[in-house]
């Protein structure tokens, strides 16, 4: 159990355990909007860098409150691309990294459409080499940053508003902080854990009703560090979808030996 929390080996595999369809609401009828395209603004912890690099050429599928992103290393840099190929609507996280002369790309597993870190379509094999019309087939990409061993992502403030929200396409995207939040030099992240509860319930369990009552406001512009009740521990959360949450546990650097088992107990109680 301890090993599952230590931020070391590559065992996690993104948020896919939710099931092949995820838990995004499925509308009925024939006219519908593709679910899961609304991404909350601000910085969100996506995964540990160890998990992303450990997955090698296979992307992790990471969901920010129902909005899916494929997270993978391309030429050593983290890329977070919309997890949906615009050609045949299969997830790009079902693809893998390919090497083009211009650099590494994420190649869709269905027909080989390939995307660079910025989400630009770099190859469409069916129309021949080096013949992708400018701008064709691009997908949205998150701005990413790596801090404290955690991969963070956000919708870039200058990104197309459509990436952020279907409902409020004209609303200004908050500028926010240029860098993701950090627990500080005297704290360490443990391995992120998936909890099969809505994030409000997770925050209620870990931080108490008072913090949970404020949490919605706290999370409107990205994830923030939250305190664990009666403890030196803290954490960040990322809502995966309506029914599951990713917890990014933090321990004081000088209290790992006691913090680790305490986190195990807290998370066991929540789960």
């Amino acid at each position, binding site marked *: 159990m301890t090993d599952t929390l230590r931020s070391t080996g590559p065992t996690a595999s993104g948020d896919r355990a939710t099931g*092949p*369809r*995820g838990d*995004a609401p*499925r509308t*009925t*009828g*024939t*006219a*519908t*909007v*593709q*679910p*899961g*395209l609304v991404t909350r603004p601000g910085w969100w912890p996506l995964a540990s860098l160890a998990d992303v690099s450990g997955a090698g050429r296979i992307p992790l599928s990471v969901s920010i409150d129902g909005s*899916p992103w494929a997270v993978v290393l391309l030429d050593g840099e983290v890329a977070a691309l*919309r997890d*949906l190929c*615009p*050609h*045949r*609507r*299969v*997830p790009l*996280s*079902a693809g893998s990294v390919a090497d083009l002369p211009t650099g590494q790309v994420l*190649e*869709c*597993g*269905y*027909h*080989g459409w390939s995307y660079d870190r910025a*989400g630009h379509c770099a190859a*469409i*094999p*069916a*129309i*021949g080499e080096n013949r992708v019309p400018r701008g*064709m*087939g*691009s*997908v*949205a990409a998150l701005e990413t940053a790596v801090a404290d061993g955690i991969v963070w992502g956000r919708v870039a403030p200058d*990104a*197309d508003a*459509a*990436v952020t929200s*279907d409902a409020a*396409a004209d609303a200004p995207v908050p500028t926010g902080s240029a860098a993701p939040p950090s627990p500080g030099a005297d704290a360490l992240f443990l391995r992120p854990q998936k909890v099969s509860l809505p994030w409000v319930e997770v925050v209620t369990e870990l931080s108490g009703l008072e913090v949970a009552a404020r949490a919605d406001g706290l999370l409107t512009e990205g994830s923030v560090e939250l305190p664990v009740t009666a403890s030196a521990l803290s954490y960040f959360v990322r809502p995966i979808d309506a029914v599951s949450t990713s917890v990014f546990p933090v321990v004081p650097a000088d209290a790992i030996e006691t913090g680790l088992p305490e986190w195990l107990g807290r998370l066991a109680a929540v789960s």
Partner: protein
Amino acid sequence: MDDRFEPVLLDNDDARLRRAWHPVGRSVDIGRSPFAALLNGDELVLARDGDVVRQGHGREGEPASPVRILRGVAWGVQEIYGLVWVAQEEPIAELPHLPEWFDPGYHSAVLTRTTTAAAGVLTDNFLDVTHFSYLHKQSFGRSRAVTDDGYSIIAKGDFVQLQHDTVLQEGRRKDNGEFGQRRIATYTYWPAYTTHLQMYFPDDGDEAAATLICQPESATSTRAYVLVLVPVTDPGIDDQVAFSRHVLDEDLVLVERMTDPRLCLSVRSELHTRADRASIEMRRTLTDFLDACTLAQAVPA
């Protein structure tokens, strides 16, 4: 950067397709005992009025115990191609003619799989020769991608047919025992969900066929049948069945990961290249068929 689109997605239990013939089970699986099936979200229970099960090719005229519906509502039942078919309401089209089935020079096997992917997605996948180099690169896909000059296509309104000339890296060996046999394939799609693949191997003059037929069980479930048809002189029917199963499973692994595995009918909601002509024509043909079902509904018989 705009990744918003509003696709028109075909529900797997769309009520319009109650006016089409669909398979509900394999002939060999339906006997005197009640057999439960799902079709377009409806439960059906079928049974045979005797013990004589319909046999294979060219034997449709031989006596067989008829299949009747014990529970559920249906306009009609028929048995052909090793399958029992049901139309829930008066169908707007007859089943297509699959010539190899009536050819005494052929024998067959029917394999089946159940999946969460929609029948339209599976059909689109079967008709799509441009994904071989990627999804099937571990099996029969050739290294060079299929471009728009890699196949020819005709669309006649009620069916789509494409011809594809390729070299197979698995499934069928040349006379010298090696892979790499040339295959000229003709795919024909008829709505709702029947796609017939006829193969000609010019190296040795052999022929074979395979048909994908999908049963839309419910909004979230499809049963796929693959009729494998090979000449009786070809000893490799077991190999062909294993190969077809392997290819189908490779496809299912990917399409079952779709967040919403329904077929997108609105051509503008997905991106297409010229090499996607078959996919586009398949969508148009199915859309026309759905419209015809609606029209038939509006005009009382």
